[in-house]
């Protein structure tokens, strides 16, 4: 429609120019240019259709050889370091197989307690009373089968270190309230929290003994959480803290080297009673 109009206009001006020889070519060009530009502007393009989808990156695709060749030396070096067998998982360990405590969470917290306590004890003369980590910090499942150093990297890719904070019983109770309210299976070890069916705190035990509000407890956690990660504000109340400079990942690797089988269980360390 637009272009028909323009052609009519052109025909008109052509007729006109042939009738009136006085009109200069230059004027004619100016008119044409104006007409053409105007017509283009008039038919400005507009968004008319959107199509969206997800395309899987799956086994149908052949790897790009150039990329593959580029990655190869990096991969070889990493594999050399990571792929020797350390232990065995008889089943898949995940952070989603329990409500308030899980196999992966229990494993992580127990490993931190077992591996960091001798270091802490040798440096301070004190024992770690319990461990708190965060559910979000477990970054991968442990697939059934062989466990290697790579497994530890997958579960704990962060360069997080184990720190031990001294917290009063009062701060620990704040922590317990946080754990109750979060409703997430944040990994704990050495601490037992039982909620009634209405999520009231029924009992809190540390190393099997009821919590004492005025006692100071030695709580192992990650530097990430001590520095305010996951909004665990109760760590701000720490009387003092010691960074062991021991990577959580290295604690896992050291633990895997010591054991043959890794088979953590969902237990009663953090539960909500049904009635």
């Amino acid at each position: 429609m637009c272009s028909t109009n323009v052609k009519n206009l052109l025909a008109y001006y052509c007729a006109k120019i042939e009738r009136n020889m006085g009109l200069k070519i230059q004027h004619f060009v100016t008119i044409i240019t104006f007409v053409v530009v105007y017509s283009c502007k008039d038919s400005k393009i507009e968004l008319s259709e959107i199509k969206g989808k997800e395309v899987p990156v799956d086994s149908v695709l052949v790897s790009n050889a150039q990329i593959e060749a580029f990655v190869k030396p990096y991969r070889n070096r990493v594999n050399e370091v990571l792929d020797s067998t350390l232990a065995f998982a008889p089943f898949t360990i995940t952070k989603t197989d329990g409500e308030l405590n899980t196999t992966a969470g229990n494993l992580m917290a127990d490993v931190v307690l077992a591996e960091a306590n001798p270091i802490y004890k040798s440096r301070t003369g004190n024992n770690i009373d319990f461990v708190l980590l965060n559910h979000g910090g477990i970054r991968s499942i442990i697939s059934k089968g062989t466990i290697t150093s790579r497994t530890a990297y997958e579960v704990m890719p962060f360069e997080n270190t184990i720190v031990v904070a001294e917290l009063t019983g009062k701060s620990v109770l704040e922590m317990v309230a946080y754990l109750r309210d979060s409703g997430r299976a944040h990994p704990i070890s050495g601490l037992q929290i039982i909620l009634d069916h209405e999520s009231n705190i029924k009992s809190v035990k540390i190393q099997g003994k009821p919590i004492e509000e005025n006692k100071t407890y030695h709580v192992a956690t990650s530097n990430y959480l001590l520095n305010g990660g996951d909004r665990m504000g109760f760590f701000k109340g720490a009387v003092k803290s010691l960074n062991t400079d021991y990577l959580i990942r290295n604690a896992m690797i050291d633990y895997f080297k010591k054991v043959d089988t890794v088979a953590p269980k969902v237990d009663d360390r953090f539960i909500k009673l049904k009635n």
Partner: protein
Amino acid sequence: MKRRSFIKNTSASAALVGLGGLSLNACGSNSNKHITILHTNDVHSHIDTFPTDHSRYANLGGVAKRATLVDSIRKENPNTLLLDAGDIFQGTPYFNFYGGELEFKLMSMLKYDAATIGNHDFDNGIDGLFAQIPHANFELLSANYDFTNTVMEEHVKPYRIFMLDGIKIGVYGLGIELNGLVTKRLYMETEYLDPFEIAQDTETTLKETEACDLVICLSHLGYEYKSESKPSDLSLAANTRYTDLIIGGHTHTFLDKPTIVKNKLEREILVNQVGCFGINLGRIDFYFDAAMNGKAEGISITV
């Protein structure tokens, strides 16, 4: 003499009519345009395809396979942008061993056009991110992280405009609140600004000042939260006017298809996120036509 002039003029006018016709045709045939947006998010250093014995993602992902896929789509439509919504770093030993060098080099080889910055991209500190900048042959975009007085100050832009086949595409970045998520020692003096206010300012600049035909947000805010006060991609969509597409990250949300949501002007736009670890590639195709006078129907969206 007079006759010669007449002949000259008529032939010239005939030529001009021809030219006019030609340029008109060209104007008409160029009016159908097609832009393809490809995107990833939360790749988290997943360079290799998942092994065959992986419990969840066996044989999925892998940069070399993604490269093949991207190449084939670019052959189909050269007017393609490849974008990433952050958390490029952290998740495999490649990051622990090489600090993100390989991730940035590979993204450059795949010809990524732009990426935004995720919280995990600070995992080796702001200095660790800065150290990898020489390997990034693509733009780092963030409109709501203020890097003033940090080493990143000169290396991050709020937005970038891409011109593809005459279509002006404005892409801006948004990042999640760092306080409480990333250790302060890692992000240092980086300041987090209100993502909605910044998004509204930036999209207005892109639409009104820069006259972009398409406005895309690369967001690492997260798809959706139980707490409505926490900024998410869905609430961002409801708070923006000109943004046509929000490409999200952070929450590792696997959607079966992009979500159609209404923006502040009740216009339907797309929010998309493709899970994590390079398992999927998002693909959004935009088709432009010559606007017909009095065209009644709106934009057709197929997902």
